[in-house]
């Protein structure tokens, strides 16, 4: 059975979905990491958990992330409103449908790549969700004869919580659509939380924080354009000095850097000046004086190394070019504090 057929069966199924799901998880080694390929889902999760531990995440956050990600790929709802793994497979099919129509073999490879990207992204978001949840606890606010279930910071004690909400939540109307979200929004704004919606994340339609999305287009447009687009799409997450440039200018900056580094006339200072950046900001973004052993690899080279190490084809090319060791040093996670 093709992956597409399996996903369609799962999405459409009512009674036999556990059989199809088991078949998928037991016989489809479509997942990979930057140095491990043809993994089953469970092997991938095990590997991601190991990497996260090495990267300094707490065991509690990792356990939560494993559980959340596994649920997204394995859980069927017991009752309406429960988590449903069919949404994940539907999201993958939607992404596939958005690509130009191709033959069954191309679709198989594309869908494998999409599901792999989804699993990676889900795990990454789940880690953030776990950390966020760890800093907050649920609070049931009894109000206007009803209740609102909210996430509040641990720093607010039980009595303080009700008082704070009464003072800050404004007029509460439980019959109003989206009232919980409105009040939670007030809490988030006050305490600086950054909510992560795992359900929204499944769609992978928004700009990704890892180069997985960029990988889809590397063969088509080349490394420089992929990285330029990726940086432009995620400009709000860049360092303030770079973020200020705006998406289009960041895209032009990355192109200028890539065009420059192949020439003998490349001068970092010239490019920095052209884009109104000071030397320190440029150096942190794409400076040339750094060591792969250092924890301070400039952002652009770090992204490039991740991109190169994410597919076997790139790895082989890097090995042939004699740069694989350097790339590995950049992408290999180091324990925090080392």
């Amino acid at each position, binding site marked *: 059975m093709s992956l597409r057929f399996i996903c369609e069966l799962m999405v459409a199924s009512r009674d036999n979905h556990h059989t199809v799901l088991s078949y998928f998880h037991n016989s489809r080694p479509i997942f990979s990491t930057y140095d491990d390929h043809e993994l089953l889902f469970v092997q991938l999760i095990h590997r991601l958990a190991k990497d996260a531990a090495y990267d300094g995440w707490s065991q509690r956050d990792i356990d939560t992330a494993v559980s959340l990600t596994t649920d997204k790929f394995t859980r069927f709802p017991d009752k309406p409103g429960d988590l449903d793994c069919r949404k994940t497979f539907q999201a993958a099919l939607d992404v596939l449908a958005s690509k130009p129509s191709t033959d069954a073999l191309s679709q198989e490879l594309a869908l494998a790549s999409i599901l792999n990207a989804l699993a990676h992204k889900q795990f990454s978001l789940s880690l953030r969700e776990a950390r966020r949840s760890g800093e907050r606890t649920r609070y049931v606010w009894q109000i206007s004869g009803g209740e609102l279930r909210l996430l509040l910071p641990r720093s607010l004690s039980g009595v303080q919580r009700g008082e704070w909400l009464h003072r800050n939540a404004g007029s509460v109307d439980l019959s109003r659509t989206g009232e919980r979200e409105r009040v939670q929004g007030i809490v988030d704004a006050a305490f600086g939380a950054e909510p992560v919606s795992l359900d929204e994340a499944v769609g992978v339609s928004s700009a990704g924080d890892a180069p997985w999305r960029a990988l889809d287009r590397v*063969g088509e447009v*080349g490394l420089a354009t992929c990285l330029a687009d990726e940086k432009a799409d995620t400009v709000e997450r860049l360092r303030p000095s770079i973020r200020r440039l705006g998406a289009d200018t960041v895209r032009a900056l990355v192109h200028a850097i890539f065009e420059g580094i192949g020439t003998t006339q490349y001068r970092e200072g010239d490019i920095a000046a052209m884009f109104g950046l000071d030397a320190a900001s440029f150096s942190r973004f794409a400076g040339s004086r750094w060591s792969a052993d250092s924890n301070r690899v400039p952002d652009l080279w770090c992204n490039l190394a991740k991109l190169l190490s994410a*597919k*076997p084809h790139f790895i*082989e*090319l890097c090995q042939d*070019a004699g740069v694989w060791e350097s790339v590995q040093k950049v992408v290999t996670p180091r324990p925090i504090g080392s």
Partner: protein
Amino acid sequence: MRRALTAIEQVLKEQPPKDTQAVQALADSTTGMELLALVGQEAGATVILRHNGRQVGRAVVLRGTAGATFAGIIPGRYHLSLSTGWNVWDQDLQAKDLLVGLAFPGEPIAAAAKTRSLDERATVVGTVADGALGIRVIPGRESGTIRCMWT
């Protein structure tokens, strides 16, 4: 490092040769094969051949080339699957499928091997993976060959 990466970038942007022979020559080297797969995004599908349950071959099939070839095929049950786990072909191959002398009785072996084109010599012809992958079994003097083509 950056200069080397730029060199990779330039290689990646080169168009794959159009000429079939040149493509095949490139595909014969591991690096060339990977490079082709890379340049033509998702152009390479890894296929795995099993004989009586044991893996006997693994190759990358590239679209538009002569395809992957598994030689030394002896009678038995063969499974062909993609690296994604999709089992696309399951066939019991017998001596008459794999040996020229049995496939074309009465015809001199050397003549059969020389005068017939590969397509004419194929004893098993079919497409799998919803028509995307063509399969030919070609008999030889002492063993057969399985060829997979991304059509």
